[in-house]
């Protein structure tokens, strides 16, 4: 069947800044009486002229940075908010999974919550009755199904919630990052279930930062940037193009743009260089920081990420706060002995904070560096990411 499941034509969404705020009626009234003329609200377009269509059974991955308009698009297609212009035509029953466990109530038992959650996601009672045993079996919480979920561990809670989501009957599914739940083992099962769903002829729109998952699950890809579609093609094309864009915009060094808001402790500059030879390469970063307010003594952490934005490793050279507010300006040199990485471009994120839960500043994917040589001497055949990013030193001995 080549039926169009979704047709999106020129979808645009304008937000008026200030309109999104929760107001107080009393304020509103007093402004009215004082005759305070209001400044015209600032506007911005979260989505501009987005068009695409999706045939039945296709799996579309939407990629884009934070603020690119991915969530706005999902919100419009889920009918949580209406577009300012354009239209979308949806053929069939559409269910959006923007999170798992929507509507779960801690006082209710697992069984009760399954019915509640599935009904909220648009399932009929008969359908739930029929699938109930599968859902419970998938979640692995059989023994606790009649226990209030407030007594569940967070892992059990998420597993039950995902189990419901995974058994949703719909013609079209909108999925947002729900894969990022649970422990590794469960994530694997979720991914398996997702590809089962994707291959099962269901039409799926999938938004994720996980480019590997997108590559594995999707047939089509769409890149959004600043609310506009910059590329629409196969998933493979979209993922590669996204990685290129992501790298192309970054350099070896980073300077704080003037429009970035001030912070008590702000990273103002990062420069990077690589020293040494494979397999002993060191990433050296010089980080300049300025304390313009009071903050607790801070320490620094550096993440190294693959081009798609998935972290490969994190280095925290010192765990105690050594950046004191009293010093005002700081220059910190971090050197990281990289593991033997395959050739390619990598990104680094620099974070400063006073505690692992207390971020003072963070520059995500601020600098890029490139590794050109293979970590294995004499290797002539190329490396591919399908086998991972690290080539550990290894030895072999033929015993017989």
């Amino acid at each position, binding site marked *: 069947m080549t039926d169009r499941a979704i047709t999106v034509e020129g979808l645009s969404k304008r*937000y008026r800044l200030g*309109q*999104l*705020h*929760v*107001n*107080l*009626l*009393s304020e*509103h009234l007093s402004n009215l009486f004082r005759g305070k003329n209001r400044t015209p609200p600032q506007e911005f377009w979260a989505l501009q002229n987005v068009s695409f269509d999706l045939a039945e059974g296709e799996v579309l991955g939407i990629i884009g940075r934070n603020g690119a308009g991915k969530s706005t698009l999902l*919100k*419009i*297609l*889920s*009918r*949580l*908010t*209406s*577009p*300012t*212009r*354009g*239209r*979308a*035509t*949806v*053929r*069939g*029953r*559409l269910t*959006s999974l*923007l*999170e798992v466990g*929507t*509507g779960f*109530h801690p*006082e*209710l038992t697992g069984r*009760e919550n399954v*019915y*509640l959650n599935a*009904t*909220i*996601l648009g399932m*009929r*009672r*008969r*359908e739930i009755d029929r699938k109930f045993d599968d859902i419970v079996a998938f979640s692995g919480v059989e023994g606790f199904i009649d226990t209030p979920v407030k007594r569940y561990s967070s892992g059990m809670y998420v597993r039950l919630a995902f189990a419901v989501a995974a058994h949703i*009957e*719909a*013609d079209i599914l909108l999925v947002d990052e729900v894969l990022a739940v649970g422990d590794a083992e469960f994530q694997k099962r979720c991914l398996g279930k997702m590809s089962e769903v994707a291959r099962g*002829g269901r039409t799926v729109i999938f938004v994720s930062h996980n480019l590997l998952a997108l590559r594995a699950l999707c047939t089509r890809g769409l890149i959004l940037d600043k609310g506009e579609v910059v590329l629409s093609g196969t998933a493979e094309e979209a993922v590669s193009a996204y990685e290129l864009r992501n790298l192309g915009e970054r350099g070896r060094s980073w300077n704080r743009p003037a429009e970035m808001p001030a912070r008590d402790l702000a990273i103002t500059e990062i420069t990077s260089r690589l020293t040494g030879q494979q397999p002993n390469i060191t990433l050296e970063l010089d980080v300049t920081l300025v304390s313009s307010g009071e903050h607790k003594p801070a320490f620094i952490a550096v993440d190294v990420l693959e081009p798609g934005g998935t972290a490969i490793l994190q280095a925290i050279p010192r765990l105690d706060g050594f950046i004191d507010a009293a010093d005002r300006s700081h220059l910190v040199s971090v050197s990281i002995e990289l593991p033997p990485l395959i050739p390619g471009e990598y990104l680094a994120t620099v974070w400063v904070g006073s505690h692992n839960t207390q971020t003072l500043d963070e520059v995500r994917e601020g600098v890029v560096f490139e590794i050109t040589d293979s970590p294995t001497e004499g290797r002539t055949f190329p490396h591919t990411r399908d086998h991972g990013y690290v080539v550990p030193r290894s030895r072999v001995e033929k015993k017989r």
Partner: protein
Amino acid sequence: MTDTASREHQRITVIAPPEGVLAIDFAELWSYRELLLLLIWRDATVRYKQSVVGIGWALIQPVMMMIIFTLVFGHFAGLPSEGVPYPVLALSALLPWNYFARSLSDSSNSLVGSSALVTKIYFPRVILPLSKVFSGLIDFAIAFVLLIAVMIWYRIAPSWRIITLPAFTAMAILVALAVGLWMTALNVRYRDVTFIVPFLVQLWMYASPVAYSTSIVPARWRWFYALNPLTGVIDGFRWALLGRTAPRLDTIAISLAIVVVIFFSGLYYFRRTERTFADII
């Protein structure tokens, strides 16, 4: 693909900028009936699961208010009671009043209180205040049993008029829903409505014949008094249950007209702001 999915397969949803009349899509509302029932069931379950006294709470509140009204208004102030024992007079009004007060405050918080739901999944938003207005009927039913007990105690038998009670109950539901729709939608936009509602409810009680009988209101002010739609509802309840003074038809008519105006304007305002709920909340 399953039967249901393929049966609904031809369902086409068009998502476009809002325009024109914002009538409630009743067919859509009907297709969400299971969600409505489930939300009512959830409210009831959670309410009676959480508190040990559970159902007891639904009894204690009207009993206490009945006793206080009888003491303060019946004994100390010596207000007339239309020839029925003051506790019965008070309780017959407390029934619709408590229902209204609770439904109003619950429904005005229904959207803000369900923000987790509203920002994540689509359903006709009107289901939320609707579910609160219906789940309030459970407490109403419990209080009704109390009223029957008190009436038996005072040996008051209801007359044929009691068959009109469902009509007045329906009117009470409509008043609660009508005002609730306004407050729910306003509450999303203006968060201080949360603080205004309890105050409003308190004032409203004294402006309604709950603790006293309509007969103490001077005749020339009756029409004005009838602008409060609860006057019609409470007078109706007293008449249907105790049957002493028939409610004036013009009172009922004015009350009804006011309810209809509040209901449709509330529905319009609700529908108009509905599409921005997920953005603001």
